[in-house]
């Protein structure tokens, strides 16, 4: 009886008893959720357009952040470094298309998936060669990102919001809204969705796959850069950061591999779920729930809704 009480009743009693703590936990969950969503977004873009699960997305985040900080360290002004890093991500996209995607066109998906592993190790090697293996700190202030926190009294307690987190949430929202409009309303966005639907048909109406792939990888690169800045500002910029890339996996299973809104909602659910689980249910098993709870949720989803919350339904004419 005791154990049932502590699983099903006690956590909720605690939530009601200390609403300020609940709100603080929810906020922290939402912020990490937004960042998970950003990473997942990078995956979704590439998966939609080339049907490939891009294992290298995590390392692209690190590589972009390292390039930014590295450029700043050799004396390039912060904003110029930002622009140059965007340029580097473009060069990377063109390179990936030329060297990896073009020769492997029409190969089974698993081959391309393996190629993204290769890309991962290439980027790790290149990153270490150029920038060294030591962790660096993100140039938060130089990029005019706010620091410090906003504290206010709420429901008989204190809630403290990091200004950086607020900025992260704002920037991510703008990015997502921009991408949604781009996908739905523009010529290129339509072509992207067409390619996601059928490579062959897209080819037959004259859509250039090479051009689309460059655009998609470049967009994913810019998303990776944004993620890198935000994550880097919360911890520091090192190769360990690529682990957050793996967190995108449960987010994608939850939201659906092909859905931009799915990545957002999935990210938020995972972020909030993780933090709530850790805070209220974690003590029952001695803590440490945060690292596996997301995968557990994903597993449950795979059983009942394998296409995710918002994934494309498989349309079949009979």
């Amino acid at each position, binding site marked *: 009886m005791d154990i049932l009480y502590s699983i099903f009743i006690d956590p909720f009693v605690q939530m009601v008893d200390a609403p300020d703590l609940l709100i603080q936990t929810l906020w922290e969950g939402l912020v990490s959720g937004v960042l998970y969503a950003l990473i997942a977004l990078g995956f979704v873009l590439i998966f939609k357009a080339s049907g490939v699960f891009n294992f290298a997305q995590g390392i692209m985040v690190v590589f972009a952040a390292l390039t930014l900080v590295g450029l700043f360290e050799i004396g390039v002004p912060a904003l110029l470094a930002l622009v140059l890093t965007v340029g580097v991500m473009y060069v990377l996209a063109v390179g990936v298309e030329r060297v990896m995607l073009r020769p492997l*066109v*029409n190969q089974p998906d698993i081959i391309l998936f393996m190629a993204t592993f290769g890309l991962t190790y290439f980027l790790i090697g290149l990153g270490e060669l150029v920038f060294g293996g030591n962790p660096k700190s993100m140039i938060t202030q130089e990029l005019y990102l706010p620091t410090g926190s906003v504290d206010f009294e709420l429901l008989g307690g204190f809630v403290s919001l990091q200004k950086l987190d607020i900025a992260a949430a704002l920037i991510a929202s703008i990015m997502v809204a921009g991408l949604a409009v781009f996908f739905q309303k523009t*010529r290129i966005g*339509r*072509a992207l*969705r*067409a390619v*996601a*639907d*059928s*490579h*062959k*048909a*897209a*080819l*037959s*109406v*004259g*859509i*250039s796959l090479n051009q689309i792939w460059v655009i998609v990888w470049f967009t994913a690169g810019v998303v990776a850069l944004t993620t890198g800045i935000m994550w880097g500002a919360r911890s520091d910029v090192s190769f360990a950061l690529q682990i957050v890339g793996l967190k995108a996996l449960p987010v994608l299973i939850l939201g659906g591999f092909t859905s931009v809104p799915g990545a957002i909602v999935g990210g938020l659910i995972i972020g909030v779920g993780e933090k709530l689980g850790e805070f209220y249910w974690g003590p029952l098993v001695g803590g440490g729930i945060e690292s596996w709870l997301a995968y557990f949720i994903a597993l449950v989803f795979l059983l009942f809704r394998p296409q995710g919350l918002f994934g*494309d339904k498989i*349309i079949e*004419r009979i």
Partner: protein
Amino acid sequence: MSLNPVSTPAPEQAADVILSVNNIEVIYDHVILVLKGVSLTVPKGGIVAVLGANGAGKTTTLKAISNLLHAERGEVTKGSIEFNGERIDRLSPNELVRRGCIQVMEGRHCFGHLSIEENLLTGAFTRRDGWGAVKRDLEKVYNYFPRLRQRKSSQAGYTSGGEQQMCAIGRAMMSKPSMILLDEPSMGLAPQVVEEIFEIVRDLNTKEGVSFLLAEQNTNIALRYATYGYIMETGRIVMDGEASSLRENEDVKEFYLGVGGAERKSFREVKSYKRRKRWLS
């Protein structure tokens, strides 16, 4: 049904040829020889049909022209293909569409998750003449295919087979083509819908001046709408001629139209056709 006049000259002698295929050979995967010296021509503003049974090489011929072959690891190893007098064997499908030659693939291949209207708009991808012109052409396509206007916001994957075929042809029209390679438009459709689609094809041909090269198994309807026909068997063209004369040919009647020839029971009595080889290509 009115028949087309027989007065058009044989395409091989016509001065304004839009497409000419000379003695091409196609090999898949470096080993499988699929086309063995196929030649054909399409006159400007003509409708030419390539006929034959399953596996005769019709689709491969069309894909060799549109260069979609490359995506299936096929390759044109001999011969040449000219569109408007220009060699096109090395062009990508994207460049080819830009020059005005587009393929409507067998089995429609609409973008299932896009709406009908979005499908049509993807056809205008290669165009650079601005949103106004695209909008006008969209209106034009809706006038040719009123059914598409009714379904314009439904997802293409949920529309009927006939509507998908119309969508695929309309999508090709959006690229402002001068030539459409139409592969098996009748596949899996009710006879009435097939008739409707061929009527629209003829309309597009006469009013918009689009030339058509169509691959068909439905010999009967293809020869009613085409002006000229080629018959393929196992990767070769075995016979060609005016649509009207092919329609009257005893063997075509027997093999492809399913009429006449009751007196011939054995294959030994069947003539084997070998087209005079064109050495000058």
